[in-house]
């Protein structure tokens, strides 16, 4: 079955270029995000810039009561989401801080943020830290959402990113349950919005990409926590940054989504995390559902044959009571 599926002209797992695999000849280099959560300050500029640029309606003003994170999750009207995690960890001396050396600041006469322990009146370091992470659609190499969409509304672009075509989607919502990261969602309101009833998620600012521009979130990020570029180059940069952090004594620092041998063939948006993925609300070992679709159809075919055989047997044993 799997062989038959691959004969249809597409690969369903492994390390491939999604644009080429989907029939673009000579596509531009694959684009993506590298989100370095170690420098995120939780300012939510990305969330806001994304909403502004993509004309996303508000999705309810609600206080979650759990942290500064009132957005709570990615969804139809939240394409970037900043997670806030409050953790108890032993206090560290200021030298071990690994934020990149800032270029000489220009004094604007404003209250300025400083590193803990840098200013003389700063409090003692505490046994406490914030982890912040700006989450987004992973733009999977083997995207479950694309695989399962019955209309072909979801597709890979020439940049290897994944977009929904609003005019094709019929709102069946099947992609919602397929995404192993819980990203995509069908928009339910507000009434009058043209995309109501349609699956919505990050497009990696496809419209900006075609103009050679940087996606809105990466553009707005003041700390370069969100980095946009050619995926190959980003992966290299990420590996370097990881080494730096591990050397500086971040034992749990890890890259998430960069490995092309993972369950989705590597993601177009990957992350540098300071703790395990599940702490940030990410699945530890996601797998694209299509990896098993051959086996699933085989089981269904076996079951169907069983039913047919059973019916034949029921009649073969005689007509009446």
């Amino acid at each position, binding site marked *: 079955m*799997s062989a*038959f*599926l691959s004969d249809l002209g597409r690969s*369903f*797992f492994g390390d491939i270029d999604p644009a080429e695999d989907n029939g673009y000849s000579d596509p531009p280099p694959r684009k993506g995000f590298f989100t370095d959560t170690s420098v995120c300050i939780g300012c939510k500029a990305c969330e806001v810039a994304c909403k502004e640029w993509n004309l996303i309606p508000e999705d309810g003003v609600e206080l979650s009561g759990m942290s500064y994170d009132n957005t*709570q*999750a990615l969804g139809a009207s939240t394409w970037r989401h900043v997670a806030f*995690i*409050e*953790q108890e960890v032993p206090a560290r001396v200021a030298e071990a801080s690994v934020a990149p050396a800032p270029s000489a600041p220009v004094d604007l006469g404003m209250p300025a943020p400083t590193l803990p322990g840098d200013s003389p009146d700063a409090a003692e370091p505490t046994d406490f830290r914030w982890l912040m992470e700006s989450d987004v659609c992973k733009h999977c190499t083997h995207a479950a959402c694309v695989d*399962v*969409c*019955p*209309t*072909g509304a979801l597709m890979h672009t020439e940049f290897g990113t994944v977009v929904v075509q609003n005019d094709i*989607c*019929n709102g*069946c*919502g*099947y992609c*919602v*349950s*397929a995404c192993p990261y*819980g*990203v*995509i*969602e*069908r*928009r*339910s309101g507000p009434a009058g919005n043209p995309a109501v009833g*349609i*699956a919505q998620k990050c497009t990696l600012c496809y419209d900006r990409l075609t103009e050679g521009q940087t996606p809105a979130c990466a553009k707005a990020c003041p700390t370069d926590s969100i980095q946009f570029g050619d995926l190959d180059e980003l992966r290299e940069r990420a590996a370097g940054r990881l080494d730096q952090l591990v050397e500086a004594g971040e034992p749990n620092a890890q890259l998430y989504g960069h*490995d092309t*041998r*993972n369950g989705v063939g590597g993601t177009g948006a990957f992350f540098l995390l300071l*703790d395990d993925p*599940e702490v*940030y*609300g990410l*699945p*530890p*070992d996601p797998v694209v*559902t299509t990896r098993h*679709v*051959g*086996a*699933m*159809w085989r*089981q*269904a*075919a076996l*079951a169907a044959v*069983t*039913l047919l055989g059973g019916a*034949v*047997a*029921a*009649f073969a044993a005689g007509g*009446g*009571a």
Partner: protein
Amino acid sequence: MADDDKADVPGGPGQRARTRRRGRGGREQLVVPPAEFRSYYGKPIVKAPPWKYDIAAYLFLGGLAGGSSLLAAGADLAGLPNQRRSARIVALGGITGSLYYLVHDLGRPERFHHMLRVLKLTSPMSVGTWILSAYGPFAGLALGQEIVPLLPEKLARRLPTELISRASRPAGLVAALAAPAVASYTAVLLTDTSLPSWSAARRELPFVFVGSAAAASGGVGLLLNPLDESGPARRLAVGGAALELTADQIMQRSMGITAEPLHEGRAGKYHRAAQVLTGAGAVGAVLGRRSRLLSAVSGLAMAAGSACTRWAVFHAGMASADDPKYVVVPQRERRDARGGGEAYAEQVGDDRAR
């Protein structure tokens, strides 16, 4: 932050130990050790599909229609006119209801035709739409023979009644050949998702569903037909019930921790009801084969049991999406078992992997 909020701190000590304890069901407790996991404020990781309750009805009606087409074709060949008629009516009714629910749950129902733009084997929703589209007309045409005698004479004279009657049998046979696919593809529809309790059931669920389809259609056949025509329906129903119950047991064992939602809350109630109704119905159908009343009641019980099975599986999957435990614990185990890292492909055989 108040002190008692501490338990909710992601990654904090409280979170690690947060498990759901159940008072009952000691046996399952042995199989499923208390889960230790961390999560982001207990928020869901995967999203449940935006389907309402009626998708559960859709699952049931599809199975009922598929099984009934098989029953109708068999009755046609074996010369059981009552059984043939009732099964054809149930088949068409079932598939019509099923299609209605499918379209009804679309966010943009007016775009249903986009479903027929492509055929994708990776999308059970696509394959299923095609199966239904291929099956539906034949199931409809098969009913022709039953309708012709009922037509007012005026209308009958203007229609090619002869042709319609003669097309019924071949159409019914074609429908019967497509019917097993109608009954089983809905299992793939559920398992080809990231919802833990559905995808973990991917080996056995098709068998649960075809068993349930046979139990439902055979049961309805028993309910609607006199004793002298109900032999095949009885055997189909009892065999289906046995398959459904057996496959369900194997499925629960192989699902690991994701079997829990099948025993809790709404899904748990349906699941228990399904086992009682299906089991009792099957026993009643065997013992009561000389009693019209007992046969009818047993048939009804098996059909209801089949519906409860679908409801149970539906709700268990939805519940498993709400609790991050069912995503984190199995994935964490898999990741730890191969020593961490993301390299899934190298460690895990393709289709054999759970």
